[in-house]
């Protein structure tokens, strides 16, 4: 009975995190983006600096009619948002935020593989949406999504493999247990590549060609309305949370910090993830969108070689330090 309670509690916590953190990131994006552009952003909803803007948005989305285009493939069209969103919930389950058993939803032996595999599944949602909408722009968006995933999955995997090599384990908790501070400079190239590839996989600017509004309206999500559209948006922000959490865990040492006892490890994790989320927003505000071919070229001619070089470096250092 105690086990059941424990599992239920963990699931509940992860679910609450899943529902709140993306909103926090979204609200931060509203505000940070506004101030970076010399604006104030939302100021009314909720009273204090528009803190409830996204709640209001959610209410608005829930009120809207759920339209399915006449020519669409009805069932797949309706299923797609769930396929896009659920994987991130699953991934969140495996990200440890503090030391010990208590600070992770579920310890998974092959954690790195689990998170990367399940994150890749989320893209299927965009593909299904793009195809099932019976809309040319949606189809183009789906195509771009697929092309982007194929290009960026590889560097992401390779850099994650580099960390796994360094730690000698593919378990996320194991990687953090083995972490030393000098891993950060050692794996910095890998960290950058992982982060950039993750951005591309989430279709965040400057890699948002699949939803490029000035070219293809809103890509795969063009035909969506109401709650299903909101689910896609939630998936994007949940993706940011997951990506920042993963980068923190894999490359920045998660709960390790210059000071802070065991009890405060989770603060470090959240702090690092928050800084990364800020960087995600910062990049969005600063850079214009790449072109589709530039994106592919960027991945295949820069990120993949860089990640291979990182793996080579990791291997060399690993052999050298394990010599004596």
């Amino acid at each position, binding site marked *: 009975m105690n086990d059941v309670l424990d599992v239920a509690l963990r699931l509940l916590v992860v679910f609450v995190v899943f529902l709140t953190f993306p909103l926090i990131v979204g609200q931060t994006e509203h505000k*940070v983006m*506004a101030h970076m*552009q*010399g*604006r104030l952003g939302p100021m009314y909803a909720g009273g204090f600096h528009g803190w409830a803007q996204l709640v209001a948005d959610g209410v608005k989305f829930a009120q809207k009619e759920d339209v399915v285009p006449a020519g669409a493939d009805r069932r797949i069209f309706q299923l797609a948002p769930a396929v896009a969103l659920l994987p991130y919930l699953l991934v969140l389950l495996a990200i440890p935020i503090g030391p010990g058993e208590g600070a992770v939803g579920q310890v998974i032996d092959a954690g790195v593989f689990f998170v990367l595999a399940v994150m890749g599944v989320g893209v299927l949602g965009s593909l299904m949406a793009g195809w099932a909408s019976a809309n040319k722009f949606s189809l183009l968006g789906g195509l771009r999504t697929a092309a982007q995933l194929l290009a960026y999955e590889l560097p992401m995997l390779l850099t994650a493999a580099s960390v796994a090599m360094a730690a000698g384990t593919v378990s996320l908790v194991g990687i953090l247990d083995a972490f030393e501070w000098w891993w950060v400079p050692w794996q910095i190239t890998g960290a950058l590549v992982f982060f950039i590839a993750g951005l591309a996989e989430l279709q965040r600017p400057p890699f948002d060609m699949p939803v490029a509004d000035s070219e293809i309206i809103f890509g795969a999500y063009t035909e969506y309305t109401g709650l299903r559209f909101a689910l896609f948006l939630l998936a994007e922000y949940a993706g940011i949370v997951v990506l920042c959490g993963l980068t923190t865990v894999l490359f920045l040492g998660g709960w390790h910090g210059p000071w802070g006892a065991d009890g405060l490890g989770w603060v470090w994790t959240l702090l690092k993830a928050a800084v990364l989320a800020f960087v995600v927003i910062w*990049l969005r505000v*600063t850079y214009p969108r790449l072109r589709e071919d530039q994106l592919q070229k960027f991945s295949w001619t820069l990120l993949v070689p860089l990640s291979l070089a990182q793996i080579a470096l990791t291997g060399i250092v690993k052999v050298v330090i394990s010599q004596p």
Partner: protein
Amino acid sequence: MTEPLPPKRPRIPGSGLAKGLAVTLRTMTKKSVTAQYPDTQPGLPPRTRGVIGLFEENCTVCMLCARECPDWCIYIDSHKETVPAAAPGGRERSRNVLDRFAIDFALCMYCGICIEVCPFDALFWSPEFEYAETDIRDLTHERDKLREWMWTVPAPPALDPGAEEPKEVAAARKTADKLAAAQAEPLEES
């Protein structure tokens, strides 16, 4: 083949990207320029083209404004009134009396030509701008409304230091000087 320009300074790859990041970060730390309009009223300069106010007493129903208006949004009705002669045995004079003066702000394009052409200073720009209506027909505002707006017209801005004297002041001064000279002359002669 044109010779490539000699590089001024060795360019570090990615320095442009870093510069872009710096710009956005710097903007974030600065105060934002958003005007929180309904909460704080904007401080608009005099002569802002908000709405047109009418100073009825100055209007002579010359119709210049209505005729010059490019989109014919000024409606003027008037009738003639005879004024009894001022002096006994004098001629009766006729005078124009304004019956209606209305501006359709749905048509008005805020060019300000009516204000420019008014020879008697009966029309003024007012910075007032909150006169939205839910029906387009309600945007035709009659003389009483235009008169109300007249009281929102701010005083003209002060002249720049060292600026030329306004023409009317200069003219008035000239006349005054002449008058003074004319009065002074007979004194000298006597």
